[in-house]
């Protein structure tokens, strides 16, 4: 009895001490946050970098001859009200918990050296005025814009680029991926004077891809200074100086964040930014539920609401607000390399090894029916891996379609020619033709359930296994799946095959070769493609790879969504070209977007209309300017 008494007492005492310590550390934490002082003040003198000769002769390139993005009618002013589902756990953009929805808004205000014109896709200057390619096909040189300023007023110089490596390689930022990327991939950053730098990557690349890789953004060296182990904690809620048009001006944890347009933004007058970034302030309100957010939107407390999903566009976005044109429905097609999506077979699986079975399955999946019935025919069937890559796309390669006869042929060939009492195919050994399909998004269940029901007709049993996203991700990345339902993020200039199909990643965890494709022929092609810098030859190789992948049949492609759909109040105005070819939403107030503006008068009128009621026409815009396959 006594022992228990002592143990319990000790536990209680220890607990008490621990809680005191924790509360103290929290306090000291806050204390420190307040004391995060710039290592250098914005006004302290900038150290002169000794001039160094550039080792080769360069051809400096710039671009001033590009169409203006903004509309001359645009007016400045007003507030844009947006929502986010969660409050960010930190304002840092690297390190633990930094991968949040809100991060993109911070990064949106972190300018790069160069950027792409939203409509023409040509390279246009940003923090760099000129750029030049090194002969090694690994290095790009930049001349920095001497006007560039941090939000605290300090000039952006080569120091802030040199600092990138120091920062990104520091283990104090607690971001192994960045540590690795800035060591393995970005191998060097050098300065030749305060406003001339070069950045070098590990592998040789074609020019377009090289500059795409290397056009990094600076990190304020004076602000962070030497990093220490407390960095992650100290800078959790620090508002770091940036170079973009907006900066966080106010926030309340768990409630909202407000970003305000800078009064004297250094780049405001540059051609690329003319008539852009029109609203004065952008507020992101935390609303934890989409349905509730929609109620806010209908009340006018949000200006914009994404209605991409068919459920929204066709279903919920209805009613008097729409009928009278108070709210505009805007369907905007884009052209963007779509991330690959679909059912990924694990080729290490005993049955899925068999190409006939894979093809049988591919013909048993009624993707088109699903897109028609479940997705209301909004989505497009994804035909191949290269969709959206324009010059690297090969329209004659088409996805396999639902065809019970073909499926029957392939399955019979693979030995699954009988059916059991449940109607599922079996082979001679009595093995069922049954696979687990795991997926992580609950909302995808209706889609998969449809596929499952249709597959039954072919005698194929799909067992759906819904996991929470984290578990699902783990399962997939350890290649523990049989078939998984995945959609990758898109982007890039050319299709990247290696990470998806090269044998060096097969049957190993934590990579994108989810199918464990291990094909020597494909390996050879992929390696050649990687070494090829000639555009034409590269395209040929790309096509060969594409055909080989079709033969292997590791993926049943699902769909692509080359558009975004928005609902917004009618007082918002857009230039003729409402958004970028590759935009992800209509209302991206920061880089690349921000061409919209608020019609203050109309807003007042809308308020009145809402109260008094107005018989307007419904406003539905379907903008197919950038729809893939459309001739301009």
């Amino acid at each position, binding site marked *: *009895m006594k022992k*228990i*008494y002592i143990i*319990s007492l000790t536990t209680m005492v220890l607990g008490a001490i621990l809680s005191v310590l924790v509360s103290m550390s929290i306090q000291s934490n806050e204390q420190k946050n307040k004391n995060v002082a710039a290592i250098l003040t914005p006004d302290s003198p900038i150290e002169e970098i000794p001039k160094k000769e550039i080792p080769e002769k360069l051809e400096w390139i710039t671009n001033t001859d590009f169409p203006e993005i903004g509309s001359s009618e645009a007016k400045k002013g007003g507030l844009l009200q947006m929502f986010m589902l969660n409050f960010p756990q930190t304002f840092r953009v690297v390190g633990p918990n930094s991968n949040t929805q809100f991060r993109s808004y911070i990064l949106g205000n972190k300018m790069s050296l160069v950027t792409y014109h939203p409509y023409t896709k040509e390279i246009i200057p940003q923090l760099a005025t000129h750029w030049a390619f090194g002969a090694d096909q690994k290095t790009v040189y930049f001349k920095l814009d001497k006007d560039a300023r941090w939000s605290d007023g300090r000039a952006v110089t080569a120091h802030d680029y040199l600092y990138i490596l120091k920062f990104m390689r520091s283990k104090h930022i607690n971001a192994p991926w960045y540590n690795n990327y800035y060591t393995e991939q970005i191998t060097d950053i050098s300065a030749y004077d305060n406003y001339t730098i070069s950045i070098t990557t590990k592998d040789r690349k074609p020019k377009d891809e090289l500059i795409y890789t290397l056009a990094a953004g600076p990190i304020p060296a004076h602000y962070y200074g030497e990093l220490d182990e407390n960095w992650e904690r100290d800078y959790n809620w620090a508002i770091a100086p940036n170079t973009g048009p907006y900066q966080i001006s106010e926030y309340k944890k768990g409630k909202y964040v407000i970003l305000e347009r800078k009064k004297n933004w250094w780049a405001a007058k540059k051609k690329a930014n003319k008539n852009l970034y029109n609203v004065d302030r952008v507020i992101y309100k935390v609303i934890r539920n989409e349905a509730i957010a929609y109620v806010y939107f209908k009340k006018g407390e949000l200006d914009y609401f994404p209605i991409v999903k068919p459920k929204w566009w066709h279903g919920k976005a209805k009613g008097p607000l729409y009928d009278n044109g108070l709210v505009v429905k805007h369907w905007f097609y884009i052209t963007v390399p779509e991330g690959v999506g679909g059912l990924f077979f694990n080729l290490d699986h005993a049955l899925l090894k068999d190409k006939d079975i894979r093809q049988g399955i591919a013909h048993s999946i009624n993707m088109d029916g699903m897109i028609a019935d479940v997705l209301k025919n909004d989505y497009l069937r994804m035909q191949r891996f290269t969709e959206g890559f324009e010059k690297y796309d090969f329209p004659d390669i088409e996805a396999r379609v639902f065809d019970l006869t073909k499926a029957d042929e392939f399955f019979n060939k693979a030995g699954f020619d009988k059916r059991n009492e449940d109607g599922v195919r079996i082979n001679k050994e009595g093995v069922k033709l049954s696979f687990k399909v795991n997926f992580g998004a609950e909302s995808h269940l209706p889609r998969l359930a449809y596929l499952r029901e249709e597959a039954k007709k072919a005698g194929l049993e799909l067992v759906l296994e819904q996991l929470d996203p984290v578990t699902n991700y783990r399962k997939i990345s350890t290649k523990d799946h049989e078939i998984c339902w995945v959609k990758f993020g898109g982007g890039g200039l050319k299709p990247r095959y290696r990470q998806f199909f090269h044998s060096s990643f097969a049957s190993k965890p934590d990579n994108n070769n989810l199918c464990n494709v291990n094909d020597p022929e494909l390996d050879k092609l992929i390696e050649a493609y990687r070494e090829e810098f000639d555009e034409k030859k590269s395209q040929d190789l790309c096509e060969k790879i594409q055909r080989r992948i079709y033969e292997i049949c590791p993926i049943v492609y699902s769909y692509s969504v080359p558009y975004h759909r928005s609902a917004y109040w009618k007082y918002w105005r857009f230039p003729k070209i409402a958004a970028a070819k590759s935009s992800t939403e209509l209302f991206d107030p920061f880089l690349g977007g921000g061409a919209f503006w608020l019609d203050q008068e109309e807003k007042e009128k809308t308020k009145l209309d809402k109260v008094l009621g107005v018989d307007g026409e419904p406003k539905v815009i379907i903008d197919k300017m950038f729809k893939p396959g459309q001739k301009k």
Partner: protein
Amino acid sequence: MSSEELISIKDLKVHFPIKGGIFLREVAKVFAVDGVSLSVNKGETLGLVGESGCGKSTFGKALLQLIKPTSGSVTFNNDELTDLSKAKLRQYRKDLQIIFQDPSESLNSRHTVEQILMEPLEIHKIGDSRNDRKAIIVSLLQKVGLPADSINKYPHEFSGGQKQRIGIARAIALEPQLIVCDEAVSALDVSVQSQILNLLLDLQEEMGLAYIFIAHDLAVVRHISDKVAVMYLGKIVEFTDADNIYAKPLHPYTKALISAIPEPDPFKEKDRVILKGDVPSPIDPPSGCRFHTRCPYAQDKCKTDEPELKDYKNEDGSEHMAACHFAGEF
């Protein structure tokens, strides 16, 4: 009636710890039974009287090892019971049985008479088949004067007296040698009480049972017992054969007890000794003679010195023990 000693209890103590605090530490003790020595011969009845809280019931249960005694020894047929394991004790359970005060409490209301009486047979594997056992049960019922059709009935279908008969049937099912009757007739109506007392006497004769008859009703105890012990606050204060204890009580407590019984005889003149106050708490028993706080004859000596249980001998030479400094002097 043989005079062979059946069970002998030596210096039996039962102290209940009173636990307090979240870790249930012992904060005090109840001196429920505090050094009792008694013995019972085969086929004999020992009466045990005392007021509630004097420890008589605890004593009865402790000698059966239903409550673990704190110290002391219980020798049954020359075997020591106090240090036996649960499993070994089980064999002795056959010989030592108990009848409780409240028959509705001591019978599981969810069991039929058959189930109730089947239990001892099952535990001790008496009878080979169910039918065997059923036959035994029917004969048991007959023995205690219940009709054979009671077998499928539930306790609540019986009157108090009949329930007590079931309790007795259960106790004699294993043909024990000793039965502790713990206030076995106290809760019964007078007209039924006499029936049960007769039954107990019959069974004693027939089966050669020994009883330890615990009760607070002296008239009943006198009627059924051969010897009587009087308990007060966990100790025996007087002990002798039944007639003598009523005729010539030596201890003032016994005397008070006898005089306090209302007798159903309006013509009898009695000199009453009415005791002051209540029985003191057994958690903190008085020093010296435990009775001194209520004793009309208490002297200073009684407050400090604890009297020994001494033999004062009856006129016929039989044993008459009493624990009083002034035994028989009033």
